[in-house]
């Protein structure tokens, strides 16, 4: 008996892309919670970056201005510390976002039960089904994270500009901002993958005979 080989990544990628394209609006909604969560993450990080840059840049009353705005400053090390409260809020928003993604992906799996069953009847392997769902999640996650990061970054810079004036741009350490953005994108994409993992396994474990069922 011969065995079926797995599909090359390029083909799986093509099928996943098509699936996202056709369900674009749905994908958009699924991705939206991620966009918001990542935007919040990047907003807080880049706000800290701008504050840190201002602090390093120095100025007579910058310390009191920043303290007045609620930043926690480690006066010994001259650096901004992210307060535990802030960390918790970011963590919770990401957690809520992952739960939202799991929910949306489980819905998507249920919706596509017949499609998955049919594909399995046509010779799809479990690994193919997992791959399709994970690729879709990765693409959505990447797009959503990038959008969220840019959104959060812009919001944070706009706010900083309004608070401190043009000095923000002269003082700002762009590498730090870039680093924060890259971290936000990586975290966002990973969360999207994490949220899709369990639903993808549910889909892969499904029996092909489900495709035969008439009632849905």
């Amino acid at each position, binding site marked *: *008996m011969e*065995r079926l*080989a797995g599909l090359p990544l390029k083909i799986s990628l093509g099928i996943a892309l098509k699936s996202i394209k056709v369900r674009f609006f749905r994908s958009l909604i699924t991705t939206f919670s991620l966009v918001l969560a990542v935007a919040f993450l990047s907003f807080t990080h880049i706000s800290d970056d701008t504050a840190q840059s201002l602090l390093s840049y120095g100025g007579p009353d910058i310390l009191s201005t920043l303290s007045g705005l609620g930043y926690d400053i480690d006066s010994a090390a001259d650096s901004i510390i992210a307060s535990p409260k802030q960390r918790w809020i970011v963590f919770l928003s990401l957690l809520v976002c992952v739960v939202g993604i799991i929910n949306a992906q489980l819905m998507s799996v249920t919706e596509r039960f017949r499609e998955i069953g049919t594909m399995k*009847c*046509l010779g799809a392997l479990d690994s193919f089904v997992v791959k399709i769902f994970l690729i879709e999640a990765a693409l959505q996650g990447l797009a959503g994270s990038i959008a969220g990061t840019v959104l959060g970054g812009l919001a944070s810079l706009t706010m900083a500009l309004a608070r401190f004036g043009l000095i923000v741009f002269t003082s700002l350490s762009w590498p730090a901002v870039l680093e924060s953005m890259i971290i936000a994108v990586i975290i966002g994409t990973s969360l999207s993958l994490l949220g899709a993992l369990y639903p993808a396994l549910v889909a892969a474990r499904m029996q*092909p005979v489900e*495709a035969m069922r*008439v009632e849905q």
Partner: protein
Amino acid sequence: MKTSAAVETYREDMTSKKIVRVTDVTKDFDLGKIVVHVLKGIDLEIATGHYISIMGPSGSGKSTLFNMIGGLDKPTSGKVFIDEVDIAQLDAYELAWLRCRKIGYIFQTFNLIPVMTALENITLPMTFAGSTGDAATKKGIELLDLVGLEGRHSHRPSELSGGQQQRVAVARALANDPSIILADEPTGNLDLTTGEDIITLLKKLSRERRVTVISATHDYKMLNVSDKVIWIRDGRIEKIQNREELDIKTGGVEETSGGDV
């Protein structure tokens, strides 16, 4: 009544190859408190190139037997051989290969992939089989022509009528030149004439391509084209009728045939 296909003698089929062999198959479903014996010992042989209908009331075990023959389900005891391979011995990759290359599935609800065009639906099994590109596209278009859907390759399932969708499904089932086409109530969601068209198409394919067509059905129109009808009742084979016996029995009064046996 226990009619074993193994002991039956067929005129022209004595020498032909058996594509499906079912020996003493039982299937139980454990529902927690009770165990339901759905199949209670089925023996069956199906010759290559035949057009077989499996008839039986709901709950008779018809679908279970059908799924077993299609490699979608494994028996509790007994053996199912497809092309002389015991399917219980296959691992996931071999089963996938079997489903991909040996068997073409046709569903009552068509089950085309909604996000793909007609042509993409047809080439999908070829993709799974590792064949892509121009050769697959060319073959896909040939198959579309074969089922009478010239020029519809870029239509999505939602843009096709039920009959057209089922034709695409037939073409998809043929994509990897399978030995067996499994059709589960292929006319169940179609109107009378469209259903007849599909039956005629399946019969034509079975004759011209020597594909074994096995269909589970309630549809008496299917009987007229079947080489053999397997009647299932209460988890056993009630009787197996050949074409000739059928013609005599069904002649004229279709409604009463088979109902009172």
